């Protein structure tokens, strides 16, 4: 039992320390986006009718080396800046799945066929997901406004989620953007991420690794579903997990299973899903996760039909090692000190977010009997 709790603590620490820098950086960028995007022409470009915005969001996401936790603040700030839901969710899915380092690592260790399938799926799946979410998802509405941190954090005025163009100076606008990103959005996201991280830690601690290992080696429909659901719930970084998938593949795992695990694992995880669930809307997030899992499973079936039986990734080992080096060089590494400082910052934000959440609940309860003049009451 103590080993399981040790594993829980290790997993929690690793998710937080790996993603902290990117979450903080994304909060800073997200704050600036929220301040400057509504008044810029870029927003018109992102909101243009047709598929151009969606494709642009996917391609932009594909070159960013951000993990699925780091992309949350950026996606939410885009959403709250008035960008359409489809491009936002396509961006949120494409960013962690595809990045240049992951593609090169995949080419080095998984072979050209699986890399082709991986890149195609990484571009097509976010596109389909964006279309689905835009058609049936929850648009920016009262539901999301009710949970807006601006509104519920004690800020006296209920302001619109889309900030109007400001006539203030550049420095004060930057300060306002950073305040929104760090002080308003940051604690809320860090709080919900904490809940997700704790859940992911429990799964990692109490799910037997041998069970996962044995499931990932099969090629049945149940194994595809298990790989999809398991991948969607744990925290997987594409670059770090490609060697693990390569090892599984070399010991007999079906290529379709590898694709499902890699795509669902990198695109989603519990911290991300919990944060999006509570900030963007329940229906949208359920559709987002379901589309990813089902889409990845379908792709897994197609890849299995294409490459099985007898698939064995064979390529030049020296070239493979060179490519691994190139992929690792492209992946930005965060130094220990910066990582620790970011982790401390994220933990502080999570603590503040927890305190704010508890204070809000107490205030709601205390005003439940009387007249509630809070903007959060409805």
């Amino acid at each position, binding site marked *: 039992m103590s080993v399981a709790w040790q594993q829980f603590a290790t997993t929690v620490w*690793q998710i937080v320390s790996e993603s902290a820098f990117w979450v903080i950086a994304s909060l800073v960028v997200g704050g600036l986006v929220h301040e400057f995007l509504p008044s810029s022409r870029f927003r018109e470009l992102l909101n243009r009718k047709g598929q151009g915005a969606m494709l642009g969001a996917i391609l932009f996401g594909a070159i960013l080396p951000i993990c699925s936790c780091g992309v949350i603040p950026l996606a939410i700030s885009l959403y709250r800046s008035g960008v359409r839901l489809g491009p936002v969710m396509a961006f949120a899915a494409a960013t962690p799945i595809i990045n240049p380092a992951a593609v090169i690592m995949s080419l080095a260790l998984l072979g050209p066929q699986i890399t082709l399938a991986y890149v195609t799926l990484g571009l097509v799946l976010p596109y389909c997901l964006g279309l689905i979410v835009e058609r049936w998802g929850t648009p920016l509405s009262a539901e999301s406004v009710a949970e807006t941190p601006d509104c519920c954090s004690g800020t006296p005025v209920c302001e619109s989620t889309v900030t109007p163009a400001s006539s203030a100076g550049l420095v004060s606008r930057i300060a306002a953007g950073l305040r929104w990103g760090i002080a308003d959005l940051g604690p809320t996201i860090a709080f919900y991420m904490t809940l997700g991280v704790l859940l992911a830690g429990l799964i990692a601690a109490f799910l037997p690794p*041998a069970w996962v290992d044995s499931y990932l080696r099969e090629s049945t429909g149940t194994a595809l579903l298990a790989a999809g659901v398991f991948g969607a719930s744990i925290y997987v970084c594409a670059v*770090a997990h490609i060697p*693990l998938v390569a*090892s599984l593949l070399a010991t007999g795992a079906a290529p379709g299973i590898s694709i499902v695990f890699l795509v669902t694992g990198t695109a989603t995880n519990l911290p991300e899903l919990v944060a999006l669930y509570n900030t963007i809307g329940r229906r949208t997030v359920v559709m987002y996760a379901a589309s990813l899992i089902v889409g990845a499973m379908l792709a897994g079936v197609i890849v299995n039909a294409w490459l099985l039986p007898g698939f064995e990734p064979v390529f030049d080992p020296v070239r493979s*090692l060179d490519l691994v080096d190139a992929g690792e060089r492209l992946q930005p590494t965060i130094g*220990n000190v910066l990582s620790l400082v970011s982790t401390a910052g994220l933990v502080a934000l999570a603590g503040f977010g927890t305190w704010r959440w508890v204070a809000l609940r107490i205030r709601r309860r205390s005003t439940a009997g009387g007249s509630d003049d809070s903007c959060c009451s409805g």
Partner: protein
Amino acid sequence: MSSRIKGSQPRFRQYIEGENDLYPHLFRLVGTCTLGTLVNLAASAVPVLPVDARASNPAIADNIPIRAVSTKGEASTRNAEHMDGSAATQAPGGLQRLEELNLLSAALVEKAGLGSTPAHEFRIEARMYRELLRQTMLNNRAQSTSDQLPQHLLLDMVRMSALLHSAADCKTGFVITCPADLMLQLKSQQSRVTQGLKMIQMMRE
């Protein structure tokens, strides 16, 4: 402002000189910890290599201190004086080099599971494994087709190298802590490489 600074100096001296009960202990504790950290950092700044990789590897012979890899946490440092030019002239065959690399990776897998291996040390050793593997593969490529090592074994060792680098990225503070799934794959890959080597040895005998 200046009176505030002047006023604070005697108070500070009081703490240092022990007129206050609590603060001298605190200052001593902080001082000891800082000094200890600096000494540790200075000691760990010297690149170290595992002893399992030393044997007959001219590539690592150049004046680098070698620390014996011990899974019990004991380490002994010594110079690689036996690995001079004469050793380099007796370069072993490719298979022997792969065996040495296998010993090195086995030691690294064990270290990854300890939960107390310094991250910088592990990273250096994983890097060394990769570079030695690259050198071995380049040498192997230069040989005639009949003498070349099997591709699948080399590919397995490339995968091992990538897994070791993934493990090197799994840090809790400054020590390596591998998640269970990665640990499982490391062990599985290690046994796969060992079995592959045994098969080739049997075939060649």
